[in-house]
């Protein structure tokens, strides 16, 4: 039981690409409490490299980022080998229907608008993680 717990725990590494320090802090607080390790990065330009290096179990991605938009990042990410199945949760302050469509087309696993409900975000993270492990 302890082994299994630890195994599960080891698979909880999240990379957070977000440029608002207070939002980073909020998500970090929430996910750390759930047993995740949170690695935050605030620039879009080298986001792909950071993700590739971190080999995370989950990516939380902002849409409007300096350097490179979240939309471009997800597109590029899905073209990478081994990254096609990586769960990606997109959080954005731009919540128009068109953005959601585009994001889902580009390959995000889940799309949520800011301001979000903490319980919903945690539920989405759990959900995505479970799906990834079942597969």
């Amino acid at each position, binding site marked *: 039981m302890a082994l299994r717990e630890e195994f599960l725990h080891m698979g909880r590494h999240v990379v957070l690409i977000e440029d608002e320090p*207070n939002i980073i802090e909020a*998500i970090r607080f*929430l996910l750390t409490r759930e047993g995740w390790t949170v690695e935050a990065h605030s620039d879009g330009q080298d986001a792909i490299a950071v993700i590739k290096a971190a080999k995370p179990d989950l990516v939380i991605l902002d849409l409007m980022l*300096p350097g490179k938009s979240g939309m471009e990042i997800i597109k590029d990410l899905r073209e990478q080998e081994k990254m096609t199945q990586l769960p990606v949760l997109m959080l954005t302050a731009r919540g128009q229907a068109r953005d959601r469509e585009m994001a889902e087309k580009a390959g995000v696993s889940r799309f949520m608008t*800011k301001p979000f409900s903490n319980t919903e975000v945690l539920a989405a993270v759990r959900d995505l993680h479970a799906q990834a492990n079942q597969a």
Partner: protein
Amino acid sequence: MASLNVLVAVCLVYVALLFIVAFAADRKASRGHRSAWLRSPLIYTLSLSIYCTAWTFYGAVGYAARSGLEFITIYLGPTLVMIGWWWGLRKLVRIGRSQRVTSIADLISARYGKSNTLAICVTILAVIGVTPYIALQLQSITLSFATFAEADPARQLYETTTVFWVAAGLAVFAILFGTRNLNANERHHGVVTAVALEAVVKLVALLAVGIFVVWGLSDGIGETMARVDASQIGQWQMQGDRWATITFLSAAAFVCLPRMFQVMVVENEDERHLRVAAWAFPLYLLLMSLFVVPIAAIGLELLPVGANPDLFVLTIPLSQGRDGLAMLSFLGGFSSATSMVIVAAMALSTMVSNHIVMPIWLRMQGHGASVSGDVRNVVLLARRVSIAVIMALGYFYYRLAGQDAALASIGLISFAGIAQILPALVGGLFWRGATRTGALAGLSLGFLIWLYTMLLPALGGGLLPDAVLTDGLFGFSWLRPQALFGIEGLDPIVHAVMWSMALNAAAFCTVSLATFPNPLERLQGAQFVNVFDHSAGPRGWTGLVAQSEDLMVMSQRILGAGEAQDFFQSEAIRQGSHGGLPEPTPAFLERLERELSGSVGAAAAHAMVGQIAGGSSVSVEDLLAVADETAQMLEYSGQLEVQSKELSRTAKKLRETNEKLTQISQQKDAFLSQVSHELRTPMTSIRAFSEILRDTEGGSEEDTVRHASIIHDEALRLTRLLNDLLDLSVLESGQVSLNMTVGSLGEVLDHAVSTALAGSDKPLNVIRHPSTEVVRISSDLDRLSQVFINLIANAQKYCDAENPEISIVASTRYGRLRIDFLDNGSGIPRASQQLIFEKFSRVSPEKAGGAGLGLAICREIMLRLGGDVRYLSGHPGGAFRVSLPLAPDLVT
């Protein structure tokens, strides 16, 4: 009995005499001192007598012998015209002189807008119409020669040979007389004098024969009258329709015949001569007709049955052995024929060469040929050839139809053809509404009907099949040439004249009413119809200044007052006279014409300037009427142009507005999206942490405080953002109320620096230059301070130097106050320097505390204050320059 040789010799001597007379008259005319009687109305009146041709000389007697007093109609027509319509003739003469008309074709063409098509039509009509008439002269001379030849057994004459030589002789004669030289105004003093001499000869000859008949062969007037009553002439019955028709025809022909036009209008040198001719010429005609009936009656009585009555004038003296009288009579007939042929050939050749040959030749030459000598030779050659061709036509007509026809009937055919010009001529003189198209329509229709109902039937000889004569054209009986539209029983002449003239006039009027004259036609129409109103001698242009004034008035109407004044002023200066009008020098007139032609076209401009500058043929009123019309048209087209310009401007504006609206709508969407994003971001933090606070039980005190302070900061950020948005919206809508006060720049800066530095803990060294700050400014000082605070705070936020510092330097230049804010950081990349003033733009977002509205607000404030704020790209660090007008300009 005079031999034929003597006869030919007498003819040659007579011709030589005529030639000498003509030559002498020409010489005197060219030297300018002609004797008084040569310039008297007598010569003019006598020259009109070319109306009396061999037809009247020989033919009248024949006519009387056949049809009794009907021959009088031939004299009655011209008499009525001269007495009853002399004012109409005066108008013709006036127009002819003022327009420098060279022929009747030229006159018609000039009246209807100088249309050469019309001139060609009239020329062709005249040539065809006159051809039978020339044939008639050939016939009479040939007959008279033959009469003498019969009496001279030594000579056997062949008619065809005689007529050929007569034609050739007359051609040479006409060429020698008519085309010796070229005259600008087509006046031939020599010819006119010779014609006058011939008029005397034929009158004397006819009177001599008449006197011989009445007092030599009969015993005075009483017995002669009794013998007339006894002859078949006594049984003569008047036919009203024929009388009316032939009187009308001879009247029309008197006015329209090219040769009559030549002597009456072209050769006229003084309008007043017409007044004398008005009674003198009818008198001449009376004398000419006086003995016609007695000669005819006595001839019918004395000479054997079957003798040609057309030759009684000759055969009566011959039969009585009066060779001298016969010779005189022959010379009279010869005079009648030659004078007619010379003048007719001259007039026709002028028309043919001016309106047919020369246009073709000029076109073939292209535009380059203008060597005057060259042209002169061509014109002379063209006229000579034309004369030869016209004589040849007469010869062939004679061969075709003339041999067996009576002189009078040939003459009437000719008259009826020529009369077709009458509607266009008279209409042109008295009706301004007559148009070129109308004249063309009338002429052509009348000509065709005349051809069909009169000339072709007269020619016979297979030209018109008998079937057509009896059954009508294409078998339509209503198209029978001598019973058009089924109207039968009329005399052929009456029938032809009635139909051709009626349809001619009807077509002329209808088409004129239906068509619209062009400007030149209207101008010419006005000049023709109103020729008396403004061409009188004493009412000419008085002096050059008056002329310049008239030119000015006209130009103003065409060019517009301002432009015309500018033009005249510049011309006056060019001529060296300051103030006042320019002299109408040729160079000035040429430039004016060019200027005007831009508005009314070259022809109209030329006509207008020419009329004012060149003389007196048109009134200022007429010109102004035309100019007014032009101005109205110009104005109207100008209005249309303005309207269409306005429309396209409005359309463009609408398009632009539409684009702008679309753009604004897109900007609004983008702005809303931006605003939404900017609001959602702090709200996200607030919501997340407030939920954490709510849901977390037993969290550390430290965390709780931290989360609460984040919520607080983000709430403040939201408030700032909303404030900025409201501020910007007020500034952008222009509804901001400025609180203009006066203060010193130093004080405003003091306040701004302290406020800015108090807002943040980041260190920033502010370097001031107090000496530059001693400036009084009048502005909304709070707003200005807001701008300064924003700039200083930006430096504080973004300056990346190790020891950040900002230097504030004020200066004045070009009446403007400039305050530069220069920091020692790395500055803003060139690509972003324009962008930073846009809403929500942030160069480095992670450092930004605001929403990116600060500089946009600064820009709006400075705009309201009459100044501006911009980035100084030349500076190594961050550098902003605020500029605003100095106090005096602002105090309003």
